[in-house]
């Protein structure tokens, strides 16, 4: 693998995380528990899809095959998507969505803080832009974790259940392989092992206020970064890709 291939793969991983989560949250449009929350979730989805667009644009440029952002977003096969399993999980109930978002937002804030210092000017610029939005996302999900955890017995039990279920997908956020190794040497990629302690301590802090427990179950599930997805991915892609598959090259 050369440097160009590594940057392409690296950028697609980030883009796919944003795309799939943005797609998932957009499914809440019109279904939010209250109007304000419906609007908040769709705003966050819009930010994530906007970030995905920027990363896909850059990936297409690096690839240099004349493909567009849309080709990459809509016309790859399931195994070519490299997002983590966490972001493709189903929305479930509102607590499930918030727990998934919270784990991701904490990671993303730390990740973009580091990536904005990358020696790759394009990645750094997109990260700097995305970071400002991610801070709002994190504030939103943190406040909900506290409100649900420290709310009624029912909301507490439900959000603890969401946390317990999704915990097994969190280790994969810190997955690294030869792509990362190659790019870390050039100060392009972020060394994720360095982020993990901060990720966990932030979560502990919020969980303490939310009277929630960090799961102790050690089993972790991974595969997304290698293109091996959970059963939910196919359904998400079916909806995401439907128009382009049914009407190739259609324009909005």
């Amino acid at each position: 693998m050369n440097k160009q291939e590594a940057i392409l793969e690296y950028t697609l991983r980030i883009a796919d995380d944003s795309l799939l989560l943005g797609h998932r949250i957009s499914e809440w449009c019109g279904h939010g528990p209250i109007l304000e929350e419906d609007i908040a979730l769709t705003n966050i989805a819009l930010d994530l899809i906007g970030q995905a667009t920027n990363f896909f644009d850059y990936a297409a440029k690096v690839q240099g095959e004349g493909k567009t952002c849309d080709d990459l977003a809509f016309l790859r096969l399931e195994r070519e998507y490299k997002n983590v399993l966490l972001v493709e999980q189903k929305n479930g109930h509102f607590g499930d969505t918030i727990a998934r978002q919270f784990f991701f937002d904490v990671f993303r804030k730390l990740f973009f803080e580091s990536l904005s210092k990358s020696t790759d000017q394009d990645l750094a610029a997109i990260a700097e832009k995305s970071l400002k939005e991610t801070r709002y996302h994190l504030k939103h999900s943190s406040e909900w974790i506290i409100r649900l955890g420290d709310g009624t017995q029912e909301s507490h039990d439900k959000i603890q259940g969401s946390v317990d279920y999704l915990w097994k997908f969190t280790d994969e956020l810190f997955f690294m392989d030869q792509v990362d190794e190659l790019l870390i040497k050039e100060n392009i990629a972020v060394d994720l092992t360095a982020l993990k302690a901060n990720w966990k301590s932030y979560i502990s802090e919020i969980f303490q206020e939310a009277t929630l427990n960090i799961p102790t179950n050690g089993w972790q599930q991974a595969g997304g970064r290698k293109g091996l997805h959970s059963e939910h991915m196919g359904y998400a892609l079916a909806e995401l890709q439907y128009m382009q598959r049914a009407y190739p090259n259609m324009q909005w």
Partner: protein
Amino acid sequence: MVKKEKIWELLEQVFDPEVPVLNIVDLGIVRTVEMNDHTCKVTITPTYSGCPAMKTIEEEIQKLFQENDIEVEIESTLSPAWTTDWISENGKNKLREYGIAPPENEVDKSVLFAEATVVPCPLCKSKNTKMVSLFGSTACKAHYQCNECLEPFDYFKCLR
């Protein structure tokens, strides 16, 4: 040759479709204007990554310049990232008059749950207001309500 001042004047006639009281110069998204012999290059930057207004704004610029027989090349840049600090004083006044509270100087966003920012009501000027939702009618706004006159209003939230 067209003067640079003329270009800026034209750009002041292009408005943000989501906040129609602000032109794109007041909004601070026009970064640079470069002049060549027969063409000019305008560099703009998005407010938010997923801002759906960017495309409309580009089209508006193209249209207006075409009407004025000026060839324009529009480039979009992400860095340095747009911040609400770039909204002009003039722009902030226009927002207030329109009923949207302009961005307040907020402390570092990374400090969670710091004391909530005081956002004065654009209608009655009372500082006794509350945040209803961090996310409002568009990506750039939060939803507030005045406790005195009960007016619900948009707050153009601080982005730094």
